[in-house]
């Protein structure tokens, strides 16, 4: 009651809104700046003080799309991301379910081992991975890139989904068993729909990481499989920084993740299990 009244107070409310607004501006500023720059001509974005009102142009975007490497990289990123998200969920979700539901020897150790893969910085495994990939001829291949990103993302998928599965009351699955459903049916038709928010969240996190990753891409891709961050990186050369195309390609790179996140948003609404059980 006291807390409710506190937040109803107009002054307090206004202060909190100002702080929130300031935070949003700080977060959004680089993106807004990039978007604005992507629509400016070379003359406009070199002006100081910067122009906030200007004649927009699509020239930078045209230049990006004229760059055949960029279009190819865009396609590569989509292929690799779909592969990583799909395979990570396909493997990680049943793994998380098994960890959350079944009792077996060494369960704690396995769970810790999975998590420990995230302890070391990715750069530590870069050289060994490069050697292994060279031997296995996985450098500059889609399966190679999907595998390396799965290695990084699986612990995340497993641990996030483990939390979601643990929150599903066992009674619901047992009710399914008594009703006559097979365990696989229960997993796919009863449990999985209940963890959709978790699936959506992990899919988004996996996608964002894979889409934006530069270090592994730099070392393990070649001309055929280079990804978006590499293509953007190429607009920074020794002789000049092409601010216009760099900003335009960045805006294009942001778009797919934004669309995917918006599509998944409705599944992110929590509380789907409410009503199944008496809280």
């Amino acid at each position: 009651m006291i807390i409710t009244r506190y937040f109803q107070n107009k002054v307090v409310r206004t202060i909190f809104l100002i702080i929130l607004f300031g935070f949003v501006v700080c977060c959004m500023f680089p993106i807004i700046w990039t978007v604005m720059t992507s629509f400016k001509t070379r003359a406009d974005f070199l002006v100081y003080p910067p122009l906030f009102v200007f004649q927009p142009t699509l020239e930078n975007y045209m230049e990006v799309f004229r760059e055949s490497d960029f279009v190819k990289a865009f396609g590569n990123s989509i292929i690799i991301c779909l592969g990583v998200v799909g395979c990570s969920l396909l493997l990680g979700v049943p793994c998380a379910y098994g960890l959350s539901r079944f009792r077996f020897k060494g369960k704690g150790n396995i769970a810790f081992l999975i998590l420990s893969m995230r302890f070391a910085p990715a750069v530590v495994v870069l050289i060994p991975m490069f050697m292994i990939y060279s031997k296995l001829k996985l450098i500059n291949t889609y399966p190679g890139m999907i595998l390396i990103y799965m290695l990084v993302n699986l612990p995340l998928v497993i641990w996030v989904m483990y939390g979601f599965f643990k929150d599903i009351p066992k009674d619901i699955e047992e009710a399914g068993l008594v009703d006559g459903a097979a365990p696989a049916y229960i997993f796919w038709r009863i449990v999985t729909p209940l963890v959709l928010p978790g699936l959506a969240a992990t899919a988004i996190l996996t996608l964002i990481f894979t889409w934006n990753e530069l270090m592994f891409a730099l070392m393990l891709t070649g001309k055929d499989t280079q990804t978006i961050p590499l293509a953007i990186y190429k607009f920074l050369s020794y002789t000049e920084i092409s601010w216009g195309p760099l900003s335009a390609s960045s805006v294009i790179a942001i778009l797919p993740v934004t669309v995917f996140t918006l599509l998944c948003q409705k599944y992110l609404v929590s509380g789907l299990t409410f009503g199944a059980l008496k809280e």
Partner: protein
Amino acid sequence: MARVRLENVCKSYDNSEHMAVSDFSLEVQDKEFVVLVGPSGCGKTTTLRMIAGLEDITSGGLFIDDRLVNDLEPKDRDIAMVFQNYALYPHMSVFDNMGFALKLRKRPKEEIAAAVNEAARILSIGHLLDRKPRQLSGGERQRVAIGRAIVRHPKVFLMDEPLSNLDAKMRTQMRAEIIKLHKRLNTTFVYVTHDQVEAMTLGDRIVVMKDGLIQQIDTPQNIYDTPANVFVAGFIGTPQMNLFHGARLVLAAGDYYVRMFGREFLLPEEKQQILKGKGAAEQAVIAGVRPDDFELTAGGSGITALPDLGEVMGSEVILHVRIPKEGVGIADLSEAEGVVESDDENLNWVGAVIVQKGGASGSTEAVSILPDASKINLFDPATQANLLL
């Protein structure tokens, strides 16, 4: 319709020495309503889950209609279960929840619809069929959970504390509905509860459990009248049975008396016969008298007791009284000396007495009370068992 038989069923987890359920033997007759009751951790839910097939049986045999089902999957046992937390499928409508089991059995849509509608009609939830569980109240969800069980017409209904999450009013209402449902469906029910009122009102027979062991199996009335041991005496009945730890069984002129509070009470003929049959010797006993087996006596001819407080229940009053030890006057009785349960007959005794309203008010004036000697139970202080069984 089915008989359920458990023969020396034991359950231990992870091969530990501790038995969650020990040597459990029970035969539930066809169409019988059996209630398993006991405090938390007594093994009642584990037993129910073993019947359902949700827990493995460590040793012993479980038979449904004389068929050993120990290793049968839950779906092959033809049972339905109502869970304590309802366990409805949150992403399905009420209709889909109720029709789920039939859908899995690949029954035609018309048959499923007819069965769901019939169950919904019985439970008065026809108007809720399109809703999701989260849109229902606690009572409605409970009805849906029961509805989900009855659409299949299973051989045995298993219910695991289905009313424990409802408020008092709804619980009373649903209790009556479950009794009606049992009569209507004419099927075997096994019901688990920790609430002895539910056990008394619902069960044809009650199984009282403690620490994984059966304490007593009998009809509610028999359990109330002659509890098998001190635990059952204390567990069944509200307020619980009064236990006089300092009582003594006395044999005089061939008749048995119970001596307590400096008086001797002649036991009725039926109890005399039982004790004679056993050749019971004079011994210290724990005497048990239900609070409603006392009566107020006029003119101070009974035992003088000092009420600490009186709970007015409407038609009756529960007096929480103290009776002084021998040689102590009622005026000298101080609150600090009161003990609830003690083997020392020299201490004051504290207990409850139910009297009809009008006989006493909620005041703390000293009253004169007498136990009904025909209703006294006698327990062996060493074994805690009822000497009259």
